[in-house]
């Protein structure tokens, strides 16, 4: 199955096997992730047993941004792991396969006129590359790479939950003690949707909020009254491309310099 063929066929069973074989299961919630993987694999097909055909041109709109994502992740890999040319090519190939798989999945969702619920491409790519690096690089290097990936995820999650707390503080004027408690409560059990796109915290009115059950016990009576009157307007969805985080800085950050990495590196 290659993108060079006129039509790409995606048998459902092969989809399941690919999903399982790339090992994207999340250690923290294997059941939910397992369900998600099944959904990823079966949902696009629509009817059981049907093959899904995707023309390569349908993948192009997704592959462009996803390649930028891969460029950033390859840069990160190189910075941490200092691979030789062979190792770099192998990890790059892993990444390219993953973004093709993601692009195919996005195309299928788009075909179903689905505008939200696209899987988190960055998370999928990071996990696929982490697995690839573990197979390709020496153990101590792979471990360092995993640690750095974990630190990035943690910093991102912290940033999102802290911004959410700031938005709540603006609405309810929390005391310092409340601020810390609210942030701890949010950070303890964050919804992955809260973490995906940091741009949503630039719109206080539409930023995601924790459920009232989490907030209510931490607020004063007056704050609770305001919480009670609040209308839930849902959260912003900027779309899959914005969720990749590549649009926020517009023309100021094209990463051309990073694209200039040679495809093969001198050992």
């Amino acid at each position: 199955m290659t993108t060079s063929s006129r039509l790409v066929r995606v048998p459902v069973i092969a989809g399941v096997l690919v999903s399982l074989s790339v090992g994207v299961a999340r250690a923290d919630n294997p059941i939910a992730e397992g369900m998600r993987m099944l959904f990823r694999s079966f949902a696009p097909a629509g009817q059981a047993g049907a093959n899904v055909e995707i023309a390569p041109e349908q993948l192009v709109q997704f592959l462009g941004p996803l390649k930028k994502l891969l460029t950033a992740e390859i840069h990160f890999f190189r910075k941490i792991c200092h691979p030789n040319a062979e190792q770099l090519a192998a990890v790059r190939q892993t990444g390219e396969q993953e973004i093709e798989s993601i692009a195919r999945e996005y195309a299928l969702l788009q075909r179903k006129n689905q505008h939200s619920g696209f899987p988190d491409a960055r998370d999928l790519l990071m996990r696929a590359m982490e697995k690839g690096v573990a197979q390709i690089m020496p153990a101590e290097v792979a471990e360092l790479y995993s640690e750095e990936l974990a630190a990035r995820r943690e910093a991102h999650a912290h940033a999102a939950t802290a911004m959410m707390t700031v938005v709540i503080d603006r609405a309810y004027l929390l005391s310092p003690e409340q601020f810390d408690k609210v942030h701890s409560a949010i950070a303890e059990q964050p919804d992955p949707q809260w973490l995906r796109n940091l741009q949503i915290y630039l719109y206080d009115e539409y930023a995601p909020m924790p459920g009232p059950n989490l907030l209510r016990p931490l607020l004063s009576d007056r704050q609770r009254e305001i919480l009670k009157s609040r209308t839930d307007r849902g959260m912003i969805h900027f779309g899959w491309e914005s969720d990749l985080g590549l649009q926020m800085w517009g023309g100021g950050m094209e990463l051309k310099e990073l694209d200039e990495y040679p495809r093969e590196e001198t050992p």
Partner: protein
Amino acid sequence: MSRQGYRGQYAFSGGAPSLCMLLLGTIVLAGARPVEAQFAAVAANRIQVTDQMLEQWVFGHQVSQQNPMTQMLNSLELQIDLVAECGPLTESQRVKLELAGLGDIHRFVNSFEAFRSTAPVGQITIEEYNELHQRLQPLQLRYKAGLHRPGSLFQKTIRSTLDDEQFATFSEYVAARRKRHYEAIVKATIASIEQQLPLTKRQREKLIQVILEKTEPPEYYGHSYYQYHLVLFQASQVGDAELRPIFLENEWPVFQGLLRQAGGMRQQFRQFQEIQSEE
């Protein structure tokens, strides 16, 4: 005039979201920038503007079932609660703060009413709409910045009403809150940049440290949309000598491009500060 009196005095429409609100929501949800393009898409030549839309533009997309006056009064009560966190207030102190806060609300509502009385409603042209938007922007920003922000009657009254010890505690309190917000926004800015330029743990920690140490938390961010840009604008004032060593050789031009972009927003941020310090 009592707070209850204020609650009844002004006729704000409040209540259910209008079609316009839904439209605005849809556009915002779609990730578009403010209003001009939205309306252009709706009607090529004429735009329907209602009294309720004027309120919504100035007082923000409503996230509350309460009308704007109730929201403003609740906000004042929360502000007074926050002051009281620094030490119990006497009845006299509380009354003075309430009156000052009501004064800020009264002044803003008067400005809004003055605007509303001359704002065109009904079917208006794109040109009239653009002019209207220009006129309402300062009101939007002032409301968004908070009616009891630094420079307000409320803040001035805090200084003259609290005793020295209470005021010192309150000042520390406000500074700590501003710092907490700034730290969160700086970290979110860096995390956002990292989606295109991933950093190592050491790079990240150093960059955050330099920005926090070399810049001051702003009192006001202008439109919340620009919070991350303001952080980068502040970083652009730090100087290359502090920042450049954090990055690899091929990373620095990328980050430098961002700083240049943010540095170009000086006029915009200055305008926010001017609007904030008006009155």
